[in-house]
């Protein structure tokens, strides 16, 4: 069974600085998708960034980028130029490609605090 581990329950970053959130996962599949979701206090999960495992190039979305290390099964999120609005819970999620593995498997989350 696939698992997702986020070892940092909480992280803090100064406004305008850079922070990296860690995520590791375990799977026997060769192709899959990885996601980072943001969950603010309103509870609405918002997709931050997505990575297809077959793509070697790391995904980037504006200030958000990932460091995807397939062999190490690591998928970290880097937030550059942190803003107060980035404060939220961040969840790493895994989704397989094979039939029957369509559900997301989430980590336990990292609470990000942004200090003014």
């Amino acid at each position: 069974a696939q698992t997702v581990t986020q070892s940092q329950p909480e992280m803090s970053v100064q406004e305008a600085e850079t922070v990296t959130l860690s995520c590791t996962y375990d799977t026997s599949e060769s192709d899959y998708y990885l996601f980072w979701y943001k969950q603010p206090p309103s509870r609405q999960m918002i997709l931050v960034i997505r990575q297809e495992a077959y793509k070697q190039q790391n995904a980037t979305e504006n200030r958000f980028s990932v460091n995807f290390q397939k062999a190490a099964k690591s998928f970290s999120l880097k937030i550059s130029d942190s803003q107060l609005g980035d404060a939220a819970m961040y969840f790493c999620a895994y989704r397989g490609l094979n039939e029957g593995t369509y559900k997301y498997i989430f980590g336990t989350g990292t609470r990000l605090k942004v200090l003014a």
Partner: protein
Amino acid sequence: GAGVSQSPRYKVAKRGQDVALRCDPISGHVSLFWYQQALGQGPEFLTYFQNEAQLDKSGLPSDRFFAERPEGSVSTLKIQRTQQEDSAVYLCASSLVWVSGHNEQFFGPGTRLTVL
């Protein structure tokens, strides 16, 4: 609609009561998922629908939990004889097409259920 909506946003039930939680997915979305998020944890998969067919209910924690989507749009998650351990946020998500590909799941704001 503009996004996935859920109602009620908050529900307080006395132990032993039955509750019904509603999800309105994005119009035209074929796939619908229910997740349970306990306090301080990541969401955990409960069940999945493709149109009106419930293809996976492996995550439902007991036979007190029942979900339906009779017309392939709105879904209801019903919990019978609620217990304190059922207290959690229940998230609904929908995606546009069949499970293949990197179809993003769009999440609703969740229903926070508190069982006294």
